[in-house]
């Protein structure tokens, strides 16, 4: 969410659809974001990603500034964002 448009976009990704080793790296990278505090204040109109692990209901969603996305997640998140749908009332 965020950006100059200020809209919330949503996309789902199933790591089971990735090659096993790649999927494992992605899951580990997401777990590594848990509990991390932001390293710096967000710059205006930055994108912020909220990653929710649907298959692990006990885990809390993680929030990360686009600049702080780990390399394992960068390409994946950005590709997912390209096909994401806008969340909202859609009047």
């Amino acid at each position, binding site marked *: 969410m965020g950006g100059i*448009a*200020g809209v919330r976009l949503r996309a789902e990704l199933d790591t089971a659809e990735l090659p096993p080793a790649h999927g494992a790296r992605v899951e580990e990278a997401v777990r590594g974001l848990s509990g991390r505090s932001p390293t710096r204040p967000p710059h205006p109109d930055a994108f912020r990603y909220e990653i929710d692990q649907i298959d692990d209901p006990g885990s809390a969603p993680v929030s990360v500034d686009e600049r702080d996305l780990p390399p394992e997640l960068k390409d994946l998140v950005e590709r997912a964002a390209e096909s994401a749908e806008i969340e909202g*009332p859609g009047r």
Partner: protein
Amino acid sequence: MTHRCSRHCILPPGLLHKLAENGSEEARKTALETLTLDHRFRLARAEAAARTGGRPMQPVTFAREGGRAQRTIYDQHNEKAQAPGTVARSEGQGPVEDAAVNQAYDGLGATYDFYWSRFQRDSIDGQGLPLLGLVHFGRNYGNAFWDNAGHMFFGDGDGRVLTQTTAGTDVIGHELTHGVTQHEANLVYSGQSGALNESISDVFGIQVKQYLKGESVQDSNWLIGEDIVGPELSPALRSMVEPGKANKYDDQPASMDGYVGGGDVHTNSGIPNRAFYVVASTLGGNSWDAAGPIWYAALCDPSLPATATFSDFAKRTLIQAERAYGAQSSEASAVRKGWDDVKVPL
């Protein structure tokens, strides 16, 4: 006979700039190195201010005559590197083939000219900070942003949500104004101060567009981002007249009745946005005649805290209006009307 050592001379940035453009190879190299070092001082100051919030320390002044932008546009070649890529157009260079480069160059110039002509503000920091635009950032990147470190990044858009982001003069004015805010009140980017930060960028972004197009308050449609939206967000990102009505996903409130606790800074910014519109349209003429200067003075008011609420800012707009025009003036009355309309207490 006195010996004059060139190392002890202070060269103003304007002269350095001319050397960089027209000097010998050695002179160009030296001038560019000096300008880069100059730029690093400003960035370090800005970066420190951004980390802590609150007003930056008093800046060191440089010997410089204002009134001329120092623009450099870089091509990021659809990569997401944060450092500038290839120089695509420098200050004073004519238009190039790449339309995005030319749009960024023109938009940065229009924003500089607006701040200089209306407020005698020499660039973002008031001291001639070079304006660096980085176009073609990322692949199908639907965003534009100011990085708090002296750079404005432009994506080409994804064609659905946003299109080419260099096409919006108001967008460029919006982003550069984040830099102005950073160097003034340095409003913390969350809660009401964050929504104010966003609103101030819309307020001055729309003025830059209106000023460039010669639009009065009546001529303008007061839409933000209409030149960069894709079909999903058509016709615009935000409306300063009717917050919440710019597109089918627009969730901005138009008054404190609809304030969203914990809401995104782009959501609640609709409230002070409309306040500005009401003040400007009540006064008539051009937004930059009185409403703009009042808002600018409030932003630059040293007593405005980094964690300002809407009410903190509103009070200062009234103080500035009364100071400049008188307590019984039509300007002060318009300011009261604007904030009353959106139900922000003065």
